[in-house]
């Protein structure tokens, strides 16, 4: 165990050194292994997610990319029988240890899911949910937070006249942007997005991508996507997962133009997956 950790540490240092223009990582993952029961879903993952960057995670279905994303806010534990070893730090704090309450981690790390999942409440209550949970009671402050978050999510103009109507009256794309606004309302450091546009039509997808571009100066984003064009359009860095391992991770432009691994080349050119 110790030896692998040392090796991983060296590799991480090596990577950081090699790319001096990278900013300091928000997340650092070293030698992460994860099992669902006996199925080995993540194998020795080493990956950094840099501040104020969009990191795309691509790979075929079942390659572990969603599992990895859900490890970053420990949502992976909501299904039973998960064993994790290795190291994941978030802003320098070990998040896999007992000393890190998931509630604290998740209040700093938002998540957007595959299918829009607004609560069966009003638009306002959806956005105000997080701040309320975290103890904001003042109505005036809540109003400001809700408006601000909806503006950031480019949804304010569309919903300002029906804030107190059910979120289910919105279209799928609007619902997904509402879910992003719901994340933004707790002022997170990172937003994890798990194929956020896979249930949306092209126009809504475009709007969500626009939104990602517009918020990336405020918040770090890690996005899992099936869509390689999307990864190349919106991300700064891309990691390619295959069978629970990282095959390659590089600047997006580099990875898509001159992949070093043959399998990456095959995948991004549609020869499998």
């Amino acid at each position, binding site marked *: 165990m110790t030896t692998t950790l040392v090796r991983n540490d060296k590799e991480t240092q090596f990577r950081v050194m090699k790319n001096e223009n990278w900013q300091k990582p928000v997340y650092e993952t070293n030698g992460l292994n994860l099992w669902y029961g006996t199925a080995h879903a993540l194998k020795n993952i080493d990956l950094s997610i840099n501040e104020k960057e969009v990191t795309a995670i691509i790979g075929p279905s079942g390659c572990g990319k969603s599992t990895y994303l859900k490890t970053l806010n420990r949502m992976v534990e909501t299904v039973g029988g998960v064993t994790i070893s290795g190291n994941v730090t978030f802003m320098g704090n070990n998040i896999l240890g007992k000393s890190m309450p998931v509630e*604290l981690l998740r209040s700093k790390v938002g998540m957007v899911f595959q299918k829009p999942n607004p609560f069966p409440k009003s638009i306002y209550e959806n956005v105000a949910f997080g701040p309320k949970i*975290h103890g904001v009671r003042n109505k005036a402050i809540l109003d400001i937070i809700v408006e601000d978050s909806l503006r950031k999510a480019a949804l304010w103009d569309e919903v300002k006249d029906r804030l107190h109507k059910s979120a289910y009256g919105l279209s799928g794309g609007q619902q997904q942007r509402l879910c992003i606004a719901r994340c933004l309302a707790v002022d997170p450091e990172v937003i994890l997005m798990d194929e956020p546009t896979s249930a949306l039509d092209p126009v809504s997808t475009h709007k969500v991508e626009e939104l990602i571009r517009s918020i990336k100066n405020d918040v770090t984003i890690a996005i899992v996507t099936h869509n390689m064009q999307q990864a190349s359009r919106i991300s700064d860095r891309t990691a390619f997962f295959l069978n629970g391992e990282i095959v390659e991770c590089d600047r997006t432009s580099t990875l898509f133009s001159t992949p070093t691994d043959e399998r990456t080349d095959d995948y991004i050119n549609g020869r499998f997956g």
Partner: protein
Amino acid sequence: MDHNLQAKISRRIAKDSAMKWLFGSAAAILVAVIAFLFYGIGADGVDRLNLSFFTNFGSRFPEKAGLKAALVGTLALMAVVIPVSMFIGLCSAIYLEEYAPKNKWTAFIEMNISNLAGVPSVVFGLLGLTVFVRAMSLGNSILAAGLTMSLLILPIIIVASQEAIRSVPDALREASYGMGATKWQTILHVILPSAIGSILTGSILSFSRAIGETAPLIVLGIPVIVQFLPTGPLSTFTALPMQIYDWAKRPQPAFADAASAGIIVLLIMLVTMNAFAIYFRNRSEKKLKN
């Protein structure tokens, strides 16, 4: 990280675990109540469970009082309830699932069954008293009580059988039609055999309800001290819960022990029936998996 936030979160987590204990203790108390109930009744009644308790008729003397008439009466009652309720229940379920057109009359029947399920059992007693005991002059006989109980458990049987029939895969139906079978043949030879496990599970549970029901029998005027065994469907009789009710009401402590013993017998019958129900459920689940 933010200290204030961390403190707030520890408070929220503490509240969460406190609530978990609170909710969990509600479940624990529930389990404790059932243990207490079984222990309390079991400890008092177990001494009365000897052979004479089963071979004696009811009596004014607590130490002589036995279950003979009540046990035979309950069995006789079930001999009416089981065929009657199963026949009507199965026919209704088959009709509603396989034949019924989607119209107002069908909707009305369905609504009616759900209403019937919510009618208090004592009201079924009033129906039985007026229709079976008096209008049809069956008296306080096994038949009158059996018909009343059949109506009481009918909604449960119908709903359980409907669910069972609905869960038979359409592929089986299509396979049968594909071989030229008529609808009725398909129902008889394909659907019912695959649904029978779940139908039996639901039915047995409803029969155990009929065995334990007391209020309708009281309203029908079923007597408690009966010194003979029933001779036919029109014979007067008494039943297990009636006997327990009578003993429970009497002030002498010795009768309370007899009531406890009677309850033990009743509960053993019910647990046995539940075990059969679970057996049929598991068997039908296995069958559908294969």
